[in-house]
């Protein structure tokens, strides 16, 4: 494998506390090595006057699987006039809010993202998720199977059987080649099986006689029992409704008293995702307002919690979530086309296009809330930038979100451009916030922070010798004054991107398709005959596929599997 030395760049690496100092980064055999160990054959990359960071990590995006593809299929108009032709190194690539798999890989790589997590994998469809990930080039990927409305989980937790829950979770992670325990609208999506919902953490789930709070606490306990790399990853109840911040606080409070138990350096027990959609005050759309401060006051104090933002990018996009009842609610509001998939014993999903129009005050307020969350974060190692792609906007807008976070002027310009800017200003705190995030903050929020939260800090998110050589060079000089649009331009097209030591992007163009891997978690538990009997029984009675064909779902289709081993037998 090639050797490289990236010379004289301004390095931002939170794992070593390097804050823009000039340093050389050396790469050999796919890993970062000490610059003294590199041979004379190493190719020199001149990074003088440029920014150098580790590859960025996407902690939450909907980029592969059944609902993503249904979104692609049912929105031909999302592709219209967007297509890029085949090139020497790339397949043809198209789509705006739901790009094709090829485009997904290329666009992440061009921005310097080298690892991404698919945020909701329905277990029954895991093979589909893996097939799409195989066709998403360059980036390493993992996927979170959903557990929050799973019949096994609800039945075990109704009886407080943590060990059985953990054994089942470990079995399902193996069967689906999944990465973490995801909850989406716990209990509410099962209620949607009957057209109902759970809007608070105490709403009982029909028939199952359990509450969302019990599901959440039970899965925290099971997760820590197993000692998985990531914590539970939760999309709480009551998404998208005015006044929902109280449900969010109730959810966050369920983390109290739990401490992370794992060997991966992870400190949180709960990751709360796309927090923007859960930080709403008011009780109607007319008096809708930001409660970002109330949420961040709690998050800043709770060291065992991490969050991501879910920034609204003010685009026409496609919402898609395993929160089935929410999507039905949304189609009743905007009357746009509604797709829904209820998945036996496990989950559901819905899809509705949405236009975040700068002419609508609610959209402006949502835009402000997402930014406020990041700007109020006291610990950038616990607050990560996402757009909940494609829900609040496509991931290709990350450079624009970074511009808004790094430049007060860019924010003020956008506020002025809103049709109802006074309404936006009066319902939010954004106008008076002058904090401008530094490149070091950004490196924490997009690299080191997500890596730590996901339990993969030894591989990703930094530039320490021994770590995977995922390295990005941006054509951005932190020593020189810059216009906000230069930030966006630099982060849109990285000058150089290395993935596992292979140069995959040069001057914003894909030059190599790399060697993408699938990350999954192999948690070994003690033999649990009861759980295996329960699994067998449910397949015979209630599933529509046989157990043998279900267990085959994730096998031998997974591209370059990379298993993270967890031993929970003790």
């Amino acid at each position: 494998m090639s050797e490289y030395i990236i010379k004289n760049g301004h390095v931002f690496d939170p794992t070593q506390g390097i804050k823009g100092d000039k340093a050389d980064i050396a790469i050999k055999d796919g890993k970062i090595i000490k610059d003294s160990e590199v041979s004379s054959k190493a190719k020199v990359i001149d990074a003088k006057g440029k920014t150098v960071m580790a590859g960025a990590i996407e902690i939450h995006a909907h980029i592969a699987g059944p609902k993503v593809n249904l979104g692609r299929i049912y929105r031909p108009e999302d592709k219209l006039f967007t297509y890029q032709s085949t090139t020497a190194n790339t397949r043809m690539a198209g789509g705006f809010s739901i790009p094709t798999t090829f485009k997904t890989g290329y666009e992440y790589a061009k921005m310097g993202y080298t690892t991404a997590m698919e945020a909701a994998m329905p277990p029954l469809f895991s093979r589909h998720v893996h097939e799409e990930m195989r066709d998403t080039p360059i980036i390493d990927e993992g996927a979170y199977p959903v557990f929050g409305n799973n019949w096994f989980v609800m039945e075990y937790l109704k009886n407080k059987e943590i060990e059985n829950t953990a054994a089942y979770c470990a079995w399902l992670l193996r069967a689906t080649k999944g990465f973490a325990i995801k909850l989406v609208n716990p209990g509410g999506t099962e209620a949607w099986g009957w057209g109902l919902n759970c809007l608070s953490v105490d709403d009982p789930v029909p028939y199952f006689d359990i509450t969302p709070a019990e599901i959440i606490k039970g899965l925290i306990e099971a997760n820590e029992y197993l000692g998985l790399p990531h914590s539970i990853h939760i999309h709480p109840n009551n998404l998208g409704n005015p006044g929902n911040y109280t449900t969010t606080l109730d959810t966050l409070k369920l983390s109290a008293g739990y401490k992370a138990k794992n060997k991966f350096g992870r400190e949180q027990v709960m990751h709360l995702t796309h927090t923007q959609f859960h930080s709403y005050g008011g009780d109607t759309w007319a008096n809708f307002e930001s409660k970002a401060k109330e949420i961040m006051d709690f998050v800043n104090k709770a060291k065992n919690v991490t969050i991501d933002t879910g920034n609204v990018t003010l685009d026409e996009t496609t919402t898609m979530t395993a929160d089935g009842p929410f999507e039905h609610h949304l189609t009743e509001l905007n009357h746009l086309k509604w797709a829904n998939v209820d998945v036996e014993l496990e989950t559901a999903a819905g899809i509705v296009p949405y236009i975040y129009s700068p002419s609508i005050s609610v959209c402006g307020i949502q835009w402000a809330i997402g930014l406020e969350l990041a700007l109020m974060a006291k610990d950038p190692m616990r607050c990560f930038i996402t757009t909940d792609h494609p829900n609040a906007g496509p991931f290709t807008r990350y450079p624009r979100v970074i511009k808004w976070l790094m430049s007060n002027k860019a924010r003020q310009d956008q506020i002025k451009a809103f049709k109802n800017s006074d309404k936006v200003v009066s319902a939010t705190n954004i106008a008076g916030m002058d904090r401008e995030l530094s490149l070091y903050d950004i490196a924490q929020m997009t690299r080191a922070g997500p890596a730590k939260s996901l339990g993969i800090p030894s591989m990703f998110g930094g530039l320490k010798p021994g770590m995977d050589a995922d390295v990005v060079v941006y054509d951005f000089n932190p020593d020189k004054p810059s216009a906000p649009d230069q930030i966006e331009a630099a982060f849109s097209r990285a000058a150089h991107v290395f993935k596992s030591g292979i140069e995959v992007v040069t001057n914003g163009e894909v030059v190599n398709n790399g060697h993408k891997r699938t990350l999954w978690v192999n948690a070994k538990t003690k033999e649990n005959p009861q759980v295996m009997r329960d699994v067998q029984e449910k397949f015979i009675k209630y599933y529509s596929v046989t157990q043998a064909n279900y267990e085959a779902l994730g096998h031998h289709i997974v591209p370059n599997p990379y298993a993270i081993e967890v031993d929970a037998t003790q």
Partner: protein
Amino acid sequence: METVTITMKNPPALYLEADNICPDKFAGKTALQIADLHVFEGNTTSTIGKYFDVSGNAGASAADTKIVVKGDVKKVKYIGMKMSAGEIGVEGSTDLYAGAWMTGGKLTVKGNVEAFAATGMKGGELVIEGNAGNYLGAAYRGDWRGMSGGKILVKGNAGSDVGMYMLGGEITINGNVDVHVMTHAEGGKVIIKGNAKSKLGGQLVDGTIIVYGTIDVMMPGYKPIGTVELEVDGAKSKFAHFIGDTGERKKKRKGQIVYGNLYKKV
């Protein structure tokens, strides 16, 4: 206004995609430069000059440019796609997507057009002296934003799916139409001087359909509410008035439910 005349000399073996035959693309170019613009036959890229004789230079802007298309262009697609100003006159018949996504200017076709003419039209004028194919003035697949402005006149007949997802503008058909008119529309008007078949205004939220001839089968979601006198093109006539689609979602204006209107001459 400057006139560019292009005359088909070598008809394609398959079909030709010629979205560059458009005042916006010709503007500011000489005849030689226009002959160099790309056209596509299947997977091969070629030039306008290979298929057409080009004479005359274009005006400085689209608005100053008139294109006259002569010869057999029955197998040429996309003429006038996305045109924003100026004029195109096609002396014969043409294929799919005539005037698709046009926003302004005037496109006249002496003969017939095939399907998808004026897809997603936003403005301007399309006149078809012969017949129109299916999906005239309709939305592109999957889009809920169909024709939103401009005028279409068809002197002959039109196919099925006229004005699907229409939001605004006006379509007049002097002849007959096939099934499905203004499906899913939320605005705009379609006037049919000849006969209609069935499935008029299905799933229509708002909009107006006026039929002078017969309707084979009415949609059940249209409720008869009496007769009215209407003035269309300066002439007054009596029409039976129906409101619908009563099965579809309805909007409210000032507390009142707004229905779509279907008028049939009595």
